[in-house]
């Protein structure tokens, strides 16, 4: 690679001419002659990924390095593009719920809830009080397990391996709870349009309370290891800074946006599932660096435990499914014995439930940021358009802005702090 040289490109938007056509950039500006390459002016082009342990999924980073300093980083995505949005146009609304598990697979119940809420608003369905509270429990549990993975993988990228094991052990304990409720550890398909797949089993709320009592101690242990650790501070403070104005302009959301000082949380500003009746705080950072994102996410986990305890205290009795025979399947006993119920069951499963023509954009505060579900219906049982507004997609697009000028090892730390999940980015 000795003959590769790169000019310092002062252009803000290289690569396109006035008409919008792509152009090639000359290596030597017009009017100058090519110079002999000097050894210390070589820049190196390296490729990180798409198969790499520290990219948190199949992400490819093309990095131009001047020694250890990152001059440019260009993320390439699409390596996990699975055609979700296209598939959604060929599935009934309830058939799309299992698809939502697989987009952000680290917090599947939250995705299920997000889609169900959007479909219910589109169809004008009211869910029951018990279902509302159970969905809050599901969302907050998802927030915790997603942040556990984030904490574990970020720590392991920066070098603290033990945290990864502790976080995954906590995640296993939550898996026990989720598995008791839904039957699956990871891909839960928890909600249905109008309700839930199943109610929580007996004694589940006690197990949840017990877990909530013990979990903050694990967070305290992690904090004892990392919060004032000189290595951790050196690796994370003033690394990957995004100011509040930049974060807003780059459409960041979730902990990325709040760590930069913008106090926007969908649960507080556009409440859903009665979040405005819960007593919790939203941590907001100041500097917008990797350390602030760590602080914000750790505190969010503690606040989630607070919400969980309130939710479990207020969990009302009653049905979990709305009393709407248009959308809810009849109970199995009736479907097996009563002809009319059997026909109703058959029609609903085979033909799906038509949504009225219209559209809805429903944002929820997912662990990664603002997950928006944009559904457009033409009156049939399959949506015309299912658009997932993915928070990680927009958060990752700001990576070049955050990482340029830092060292290569900082790039890894910044990439970890963005908390991406490629399933959601690529869909």
């Amino acid at each position, binding site marked *: 690679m000795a003959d590769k040289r790169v000019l310092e490109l002062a252009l803000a938007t290289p690569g396109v001419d006035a008409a919008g056509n792509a152009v*090639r*950039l000359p290596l030597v500006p017009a009017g100058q002659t090519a110079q002999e390459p000097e050894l210390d002016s070589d820049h190196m082009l390296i490729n990180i990924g798409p198969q790499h342990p520290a990219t948190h999924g199949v992400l490819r980073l*093309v990095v131009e390095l001047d020694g250890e300093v990152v001059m440019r980083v260009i993320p390439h995505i699409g390596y996990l593009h699975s055609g979700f949005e*296209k598939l959604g146009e060929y599935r009934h609304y309830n058939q799309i719920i299992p698809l939502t598990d697989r987009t952000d697979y680290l917090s599947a119940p939250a995705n299920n809830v997000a889609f169900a809420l959007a479909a219910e608003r589109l169809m004008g369905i009211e869910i029951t009080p018990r279902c509302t509270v159970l969905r809050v429990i599901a969302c907050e549990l998802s927030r915790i397990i997603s942040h556990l993975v984030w904490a574990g993988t970020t720590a392991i990228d920066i070098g603290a391996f033990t945290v990864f094991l502790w976080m995954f052990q906590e995640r296993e304990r939550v898996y026990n709870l989720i598995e008791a409720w839904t039957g699956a550890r990871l891909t839960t398909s928890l909600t249905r349009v109008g309700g839930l797949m199943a109610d929580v089993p007996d004694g589940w709320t006690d197990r949840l309370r017990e877990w909530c009592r013990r979990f903050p101690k694990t967070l305290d242990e992690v904090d004892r290891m990392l919060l004032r650790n000189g290595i951790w501070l050196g690796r994370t403070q003033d690394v990957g800074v995004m100011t509040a104005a930049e974060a807003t302009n780059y459409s960041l959301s979730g902990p990325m946006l709040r760590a930069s000082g*913008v106090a926007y949380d969908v649960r507080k500003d556009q409440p859903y599932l009665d979040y405005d009746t819960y007593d919790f705080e939203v941590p907001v950072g100041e500097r917008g660096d990797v350390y602030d994102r760590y602080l914000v996410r750790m505190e969010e986990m503690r606040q989630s435990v607070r919400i969980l305890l309130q939710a479990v205290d207020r969990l009302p009795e009653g049905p979990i499914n709305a009393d709407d025979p248009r959308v809810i399947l009849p109970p199995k006993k009736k479907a097996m014995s009563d002809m009319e119920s059997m026909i109703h069951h058959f029609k609903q499963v085979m033909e799906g439930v038509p949504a009225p023509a219209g559209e809805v954009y429903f944002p929820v505060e997912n662990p990664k940021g603002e997950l928006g579900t944009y559904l457009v219906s033409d009156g049939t049982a399959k949506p015309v358009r299912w658009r997932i507004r993915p928070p990680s997609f927009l958060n990752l697009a700001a990576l070049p802005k955050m990482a340029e000028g830092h060292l290569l090892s900082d790039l890894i730390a910044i990439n970890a702090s963005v908390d991406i999940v490629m399933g959601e980015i690529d869909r």
Partner: protein
Amino acid sequence: MSGAATPNASVATLRARFGAAIGRSAVVSGATIVHVARERAHDILAWLRDDPDERYDYLVDVTAVEYRDPERPLEVVYQLRSIPRNAFLRLKINLDRSGPLEVDSVVDLWQGANWLEREAWDMFGVRFVGHPDHRRILMWETYDEGHPLRKDFPLRGRFSRAEQVRRALGADLSAHYSMDELSIADAYASLPADLRVGPRHPAPGAETSRP
């Protein structure tokens, strides 16, 4: 998003200021939708961002919608939010499917639009004039089965599975570079001819292209 039927006050202000460029508006599922003319869309969006009473400083989403009904135009949808005012607005541009699918890029207004517009190009074939890096983002650059989210694109794609595997395996991994990356990379030679434009530094062994 409460207050179901009253439209966002921005609509009336837009009509007063931009007149005929503002089309019909509606409130659907709690959100205000307003249609705007393609030619003035960039000005309208810039004004919405900068006007001190509007301040839509946060671009939530840019996407496109194609309906099953062939009579309906293809819509480019912008979802805007004002964080200081906690307001939300959805703008749509109708594009006639038989004409050129082109709108002005808003990357100069919101940096978040960069990848969003690239995805709309990749999935729908809508051109964003002025976009600094107008490449596919989810599929690879030399993917030529089409634009997947169009309604005339079949679910399983246009080619047979064997052909899809063959083309996927044949794609040069290093060729997925943007134009400015290619100024230093070797993969320029393996791009198809229509992507190789402009002067370039001849690497040893590679053909030189005309300026």
